[in-house]
């Protein structure tokens, strides 16, 4: 594709969580127990490019590693393997001020509007703390700066002396957005940022995200399980299943006809207001545990097209059209 440098590039990023045995379990093992250390491959060898100004939707079922990937991107978690490359520089190689700047450029908007705000801090401190601590804004200008941020997200600056519990869910989410905007980010990771809001409030916050995109030129990684929202907002959609990316495609292409069998099942089954009571046969089976994912293609136990090869060999992500990749063995047969 174009030689333009992506804003953010993930190269083979993995994140594993290990649950170590505690003393009691070790004791059980001494007398013949079989407790083992459990390793969750929350994110498994994910590579991804995000161009400046793009909105990338990240979808997948619970536990497939969306939030973990979002946290790795935002610098909350360090990847176990692989590289996070921000504007051409490996973030783990940066130190001091350069590292801090890269960290601040990527901000996260969280799911739970209550627990993502410190209940003991006033709105003015929640928003003003980071710019003050990092010296982004002269101390004397902080109050005016906080007012500006509040207005930007559609809140009355008069509310800034209040505490988070005095706001509704939608307003709290706006405060969280203002807090992120206050450090002048280029990239927002939105992790289910509207899932906890009422339907009528979701539209307000989504509209705000779209306004911010046009006004500030922000780039988004938009994590959601609501395909309608993702379709509406994203330029490109990435679908994950049990820690791996199974398909990545331009939004219109994907919703026009997904390639991967899991993507097809997912798109088919999401209830949508414009598709009512069709006769359909939902995909069978439960989502396997990430502690012991199936061999080969993780989807094979539920896949209607699974073959012997799917049980043994991990399918690689292959480009099936320009800018469209999918990880399924069926694509090899089609040639």
């Amino acid at each position, binding site marked *: 594709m174009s030689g333009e440098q992506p804003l953010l590039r993930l190269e083979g990023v993995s994140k594993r969580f290990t649950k170590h045995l*505690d003393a009691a379990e070790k004791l059980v093992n001494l007398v013949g127990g079989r407790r083992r250390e459990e390793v969750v491959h929350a994110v498994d060898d994910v590579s991804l490019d995000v161009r400046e100004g793009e909105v990338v939707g990240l979808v997948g079922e619970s536990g497939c590693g969306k939030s973990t990937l979002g946290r790795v991107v935002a610098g909350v978690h360090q990847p176990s393997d692989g590289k996070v490359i921000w504007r051409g520089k490996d973030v783990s190689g940066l130190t001091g001020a350069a590292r801090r700047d890269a960290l601040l450029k990527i901000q996260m908007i969280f799911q739970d509007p209550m627990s*993502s705000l410190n209940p003991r801090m006033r709105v003015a401190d929640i928003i003003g703390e980071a710019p003050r601590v990092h010296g982004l804004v002269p101390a004397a200008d902080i109050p005016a700066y906080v007012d500006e941020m509040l207005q930007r997200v559609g809140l009355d600056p008069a509310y800034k002396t209040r505490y988070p519990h005095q706001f509704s869910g939608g307003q709290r989410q706006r405060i969280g957005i203002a807090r992120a905007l206050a450090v002048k980010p280029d990239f927002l990771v939105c992790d289910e940022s509207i899932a906890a809001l009422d339907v009528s409030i979701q539209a307000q916050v989504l509209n705000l995200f779209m306004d911010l995109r046009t006004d500030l030129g922000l780039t988004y990684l938009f994590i959601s399980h609501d395909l309608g929202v993702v379709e509406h907002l994203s330029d490109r959609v990435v679908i994950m299943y049990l820690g791996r990316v199974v398909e990545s495609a331009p939004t219109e292409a994907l919703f026009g006809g997904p390639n991967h069998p899991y993507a097809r099942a997912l798109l088919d089954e999401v209830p949508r207001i414009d598709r009512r009571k069709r006769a359909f046969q939902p995909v069978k089976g439960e989502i396997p545990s990430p502690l012991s994912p199936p061999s080969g293609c993780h989807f094979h136990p539920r896949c209607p097209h699974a073959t012997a090869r799917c049980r043994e060999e991990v399918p690689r992500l292959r480009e099936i059209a320009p800018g469209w990749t999918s990880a399924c063995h069926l694509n090899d047969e089609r040639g």
Partner: protein
Amino acid sequence: MTTPNTQPGATPPGGSALAAAMPAVPPVESPLRRFLSDFSASWLALLATLMLAVIILIALFAPWISPQDPYDLAVVSIFDARLPPGSTSMDGTTFWLGTDGAGRDLLSAIFYGLRISLSVGVMSGIIAIIVGMSVGLAAAYAGGRTETLIMRVVDLQLSLPAVLIALILLAILGKGVDKIIIALVIAQWAYYARTVRASALVERRREYVEAAACLGLGHARIVFRHILPNCVAPLIVVGTVQTAHAIALEATLSFLGVGLPLTEPSLGLLISNGFEYMLSGKYWIAVFPGVALLLTIVSINIVGDQLRDVLNPRLQK
């Protein structure tokens, strides 16, 4: 008031985006107001608070409100020893609660005793909170082996009766106000450590801590400015109840003769001194200090319980 992102043309009829988010945050009770109204919902708690306030005032102003200075040898006369409540001395002062074995006015002795008991309890409480809080926060934030190690020590400590620990320590250290405070701190810090760690673990997982990390704030700032203030409510509750325990423990130790020296007559010591007269029918010398101790501990506990009820389920809402 237009801001860059509110494009009036694009918003639906009925209000701009600004208006959309703003209207009607209903006027809310301030947290303090609500706390007070919830707290005073129980008359028992109010009564206990009142009682505790009186006790604290007495302790603070004992030298000025006591009928006599019970430890001024010039005032105390051995001829007034063991007078029953309501008696009058040779020089005409009335002993409302009687006198003890050395002829001291019992009411004054109790006032002074309260002063000593409360200050030992509160001092040890404050030090134990500081120690326990630091240890608990460190354990929760560090995690891993550090946490396991610290919590094993805490568990071990909590599995031994506090009296036993204090007895052993005092046997080694000897008597004295400083010694008993050290003993009480060592016997109690573990409760605070466990409490703080438990709530810090919960708080650490909350998204606002992740947000703070995202915003590049330092570890110290996250621990002390963000996590700690959210762990204070349970700490206050445990603190009140543990202070009552500390006072009772000090009384026990003094009663057993290993606590405070005779020069620092706390309530426990008064009870101990009066105990020998119980059998001879001079009940008041031990009973009145006992009642004072009981009232103190019960009222602190009631206040603590009410604090727990009011603070726990709410504040997050």
